[in-house]
């Protein structure tokens, strides 16, 4: 249960602070405490150790509070995360990525990231990390105490050129839900800008899978 709350906190943080140059992962769940608040819900107090995979030697500590609302299943948990210290700056990598995508003649299209063997071509790694930002949003918005989501794979991604300064990517991501073991396809559109960060503009859950 505490691990599930940690996943929610991580998703939230990825959405807020993630980007094509930042790969936040949970190193360890150091401490967890649950508080049952009458008529409100269950609140988890967490101490997490995070790392940016692209900066492996450094870990960052953070505290988080995750409140699952009682009864109302359609309401997202309330999350607060406080990062102690600084996350490594990704300004340069972000700008590089932005320039690269903006200068593409044809809109970027890709499938199956990682592929069946776990491979991610280096030039697609930032695309995958952006999918992590989008998934972070989905995980935060759709988690309950009985679910634990992970981004399993980017099934499809299509860039959509825009007239404004944002980059737009339409994704179909596969989210793996641990408790039911379902792999759920989810359409999600992400708008991203090096200085403004990312935000999800649209999302739609697809049925888990065809009959087989």
């Amino acid at each position: 249960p505490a691990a599930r709350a940690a996943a929610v906190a991580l998703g939230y943080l990825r959405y807020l602070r993630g980007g094509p140059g930042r790969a936040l992962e949970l190193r360890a769940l150091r401490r967890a405490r649950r508080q049952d608040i009458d008529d409100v819900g269950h609140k988890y107090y967490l101490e997490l150790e995070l790392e940016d995979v692209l900066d492996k030697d450094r870990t960052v500590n953070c505290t988080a509070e995750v409140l699952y609302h009682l009864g109302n299943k359609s309401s997202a948990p309330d999350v607060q995360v406080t990062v102690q210290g600084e996350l490594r700056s990704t300004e340069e990598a972000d700008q590089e990525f932005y320039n690269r995508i903006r200068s593409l003649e044809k809109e970027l299209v890709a499938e199956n990231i990682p592929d069946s063997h776990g491979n991610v071509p280096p030039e697609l790694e930032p695309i995958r990390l952006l999918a992590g930002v989008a998934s972070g949003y989905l995980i935060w918005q759709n988690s309950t105490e009985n679910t634990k989501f992970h981004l399993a794979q980017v099934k499809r991604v299509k860039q959509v050129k825009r007239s404004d300064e944002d980059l737009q990517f339409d994704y179909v991501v596969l989210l793996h839900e641990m408790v039911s073991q379902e792999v759920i396809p989810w359409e999600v559109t992400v708008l991203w800008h090096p200085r403004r960060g990312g935000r999800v503009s649209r999302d739609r859950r697809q049925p888990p899978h065809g009959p087989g």
Partner: protein
Amino acid sequence: HQVLRIKTKNEEEVKQLQLLESLEHLQLDFWISPSAPARPVDVRIPAVSVQSVKAFLESQGIEYSILIEDLQDVLDQEKQDMAESAQRQRSSSFDFGTYHTLDDINEELDHIASEYSFVEKIQIGESYEKRPLYVLKFSTGGTKRPAIWLDAGIHSREWVTQASALWIANKIATDYGTDDFVTSLLDKMDLFLLPVANPDGFVYTHTSNRMWRKTRSKIPGSVCVGVDPNRNWDAGFGEVCSLFAPPGPGASDKPCSDSYHGPSANSEVEVKSVVDFIKNHGNFKAFLTLHSYSQLLMYPYGYKCTRPDDYAELESLGRAAASSIRSLYGTTFQVGTICKTIYQASGGSIDWSYDNGIKYSFAFELRDTGRYGFLLPASQILPAAKETWLGLRRIMEHVRDKAN
């Protein structure tokens, strides 16, 4: 064709052999020519001339012995040896650090079994789509020695498990005779390894859907296919925890669900085959199963949240095994009962084995913790296999000591 060795006693006899050598119609092939009395003379004689040459030597009182009774036999054996050696070359160049198809895996099982006399490939049943369920039996003798069971790939999308099982099979085979632990283990116990417990699902992950988990059985009355083979064992089958609102964990009764438990316990032939095999054998002391991902080392129970009778011993052994795993690359595995560690889940294999008298029942969830999940890069196969092996070793050590 025969090859004779002729021992000449004097110059006279040498001259006789030189005469023989000049008779071309005999088509004699002198491997060592007649030169001096002291030196033996080796000659290959075509089948048609064998009788007449022998008759000649005997009439002259010249001593000979048969070096090679039948040259063709020798040639045939050599050809076979060469083929086996080529096979060995191929298998020692089998890349354990990459993902393989079912056919490749089965071929490698054949190689390992043919290369080592104490390894045998046996078939314990067939999958729904009629694929053989192959188990490698490691046995250095005895009759129904106390045994250890190890399986992988019961959930087909967990590719690092089949890959690791293959590496582990090869490791055990090559270590017998050189590694103290493996040698002492196989001298006392047998090991049965099922590297692909769900071959239909595995093929499906290659051909159609990399994320497929279940079997591929048709479910009467449903358009959906497949049963979660790790909810199909006869241990709290079909029970759902009442504390959670539906759709609850435990196992699903919905055919389209990825944790569908199936119409009845052991309905899946993949599960029934293992159950029957283990029951018929009757002398298993440990039941170990590999899954991914999450990095967990678990023991019963999953179908209920109460501790097993052997809780203290299993917890302690689990921790020791996790410690061994960590010693290699620092990879941390969490230890505990299934219920406490992951979730309540009914119909699981180690719950069944434990309730059927196999005390040392453990389930491993291998790398990673979610970054790649099921799509673990091939570069991590060998590290995962090696660290997992250390954990399995630790458990097997304990089982070996306790079961004897």
